[in-house]
């Protein structure tokens, strides 16, 4: 699906959302309804206008656009130089911009590679979410960091483990010890009525140190 079609679809979904926002408020008391309607109805009208513009755009024949979250624009490129009539100062600024644009490194990625990488990182974002939910923050973060670096980024086991241990220590030192904000043990341990899995391994080692050094 082309980008313009996706834009049209997104605009239509937005209209549906706004219709629901306005409709949902219909039975509320006046004071509760006033703000949702005062905002919702004009924004709905604007969103309908945007759908009209998107329909017009999607029907227009245009050269294919490079895909990717940033679109065709290079993130680091400075603003486009102004075109049209220029006085000598504006021309000097524009000339400087032109010179700099030529110097910019090309950082664009092919559309299919970009799509593949976007899907992959989205899957990893979900994996981190479930890892933390199931195993708790300390252990889940550590496991997912190691997994991401080793299997997602193909780093060495040594580097992955170093980063994993550093992550665990960060949570332990900053949140458990410095801020005294302990995190939950995760859904699995909670369901089984256990403490966080890592505590069985770490507490016997760190327990005496924490008692002696931090008085906890």
């Amino acid at each position, binding site marked *: 699906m082309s*980008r313009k079609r*996706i834009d049209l679809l*997104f605009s239509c979904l937005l209209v549906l959302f*706004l219709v629901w926002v306005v409709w*949902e408020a219909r039975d*509320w*008391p006046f*004071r*509760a309804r006033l*703000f*949702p309607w005062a*905002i*919702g109805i004009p*924004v709905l009208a*604007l969103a309908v*206008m*945007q759908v009209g513009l998107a329909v017009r755009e999607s029907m227009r024949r245009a050269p294919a656009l490079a895909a*990717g*979250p*940033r*679109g065709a624009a290079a*993130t*680091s*490129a*400075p*603003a*486009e130089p102004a075109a*049209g009539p220029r006085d000598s*100062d504006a021309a*000097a*600024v524009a*000339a*400087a*911009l032109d*010179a*700099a644009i030529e*110097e*910019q*490194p090309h*950082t664009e*990625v092919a559309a299919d590679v*970009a799509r593949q*990488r*976007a899907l*992959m*990182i989205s899957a*990893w*974002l979900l994996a*981190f*979410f479930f890892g*933390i939910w199931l195993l708790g*923050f300390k252990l889940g973060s550590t496991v997912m*960091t190691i997994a991401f*670096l080793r299997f997602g*980024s193909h*780093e060495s086991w040594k580097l992955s483990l170093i*980063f994993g241990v550093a*992550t665990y220590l960060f949570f332990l030192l900053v949140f458990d010890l410095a*801020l005294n*904000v302990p995190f939950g043990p995760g859904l699995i341990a909670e369901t089984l009525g256990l403490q966080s899995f890592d505590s069985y391994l770490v507490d016997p080692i760190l327990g005496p140190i924490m008692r002696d050094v931090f008085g906890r």
Partner: protein
Amino acid sequence: MIEAFISGLVQVFTWPTFPLMLIGIAVGFAVGILPGIGGPVALALMLPFVFSMTPVEAFAFLLGMLSVTATTGDITSILFGVPGESISAAVVLDGHPMAKNGEAGRALGAALMSSLVGALIGAFVLALAIPIVRPLVLSFGSPEFFALALLGITFVAALSGTNKLKGIIMGGVGLIFAMVGLDPQSGIQRYTFGQLTLWDGLGLVPVTVGIFAIPEIVDLWIKQSSIAEKQAGKIGGVWQGVKDTFIYWGITLRCSILGTFVGIIPGLGGSAAQWVAYAHAVQSAPDKKRFGHGDVRGVLGPGAANNSKEGGNLIPTIAFGVPGSVSMAILLGAFLIQGLVPGPSMLTTHLNLTFSFVWLIVVSNIITVTLCFLFLNQLVKITRVRSALLIPGLILLVYLGSYADHNSIFDMGITLVFGAIGLIMLYLDWPRPPLILGLVLGTLIEKNLFVAYGRYEFSFFGRPLVIAIFLVALAVLLLPVLQEMFAKRLGFKEGVLVSEED
């Protein structure tokens, strides 16, 4: 007033405020140098850490970080031609050619020293503005603050880059998201789907990190590279750049003042400050040939303006609760997290805190520039870190931020949902800052509207200040349309100066 000014300085150096500011500076260093993680994203990621801090500690941490991102962003702009921050892009124009001509040290010296001068001037204007705006703000009531919050919303058009209609729609959607939760007037549940966790509304942190940080993580992974594809080599000649700042003192001073005033006008943002300053540096130079090929004046102008704008930016945010840039919208969120309401209380009860902002900008910039001069060669090595190694840490910060708001996994889910929305918006060129602005200002607008209505009914629309603010709001709404019309008539393209991410 003078007591508060001195007390503000003392507060900066108390324990643990000062070490927290140093930590903020360290984070700001890394954020500024590494492209892909901008100041606003870093601010959003660091919001959860301020929950347990006092207001002065929280702002020492956040402002310390924000103040240095522009300065360190210049380093990569000069050495590699890749701006560390979107607000450092103009420094590339002459800074990078200077580096290629073997004058990297001179360009860095000029950028750093002009940044310091700019920051000091911005802070000075902020300090000067406080006694001036104080009587004005103290004369405001709820009708005026309602009008001001509406004025803030009208700046969405300016924050929307070239997509004004999309920006206004997103500002409205942000206002609708602000309505989620129990209605403060009648106690009715609005858009909660019967979820208890939504009774308090959508958390600012889960939404902000989702909308801003997740798309940046995806973008960082897609590019998969470190920025230092070239070696920077040994850096020398820094002292010459420092001297240039004072040889061309006129440009440094004028661009600092320009940056401050661009910062004061909500909606123009940091990107505009640097380009306006660059254009002024070219315009005011008697010989323009070397611009774009390595003229130190092309580094001094944007360098000074980038940093002076922070002081200017803080004036409307603190005094009127009108955030002029994305960073300030997120910083306004920090005010709400700390239980502070911008406006009269910031200029009376919390005057010490407000003056501490001035000192925080001054002290953090002095420390940053000193550290940059001392460890320039070592700092450059940070740019060799591969993006893949940053990603796990960033993902964890995102989830940590959303979780810490209410200790809720549900909020992490909200972050994921808003991350997907942010990604789609970025892909389709829907501006994201207006959504956050709407979410932040929505609660203030509704609260002030009902207080004003309860006290004056609809007669408050006839108050002179309310009318004046509405007229300004109308002008702000119409200005981009008029500018576009004139630009089309003159044959200029729009969107030259304003970028989304400033």
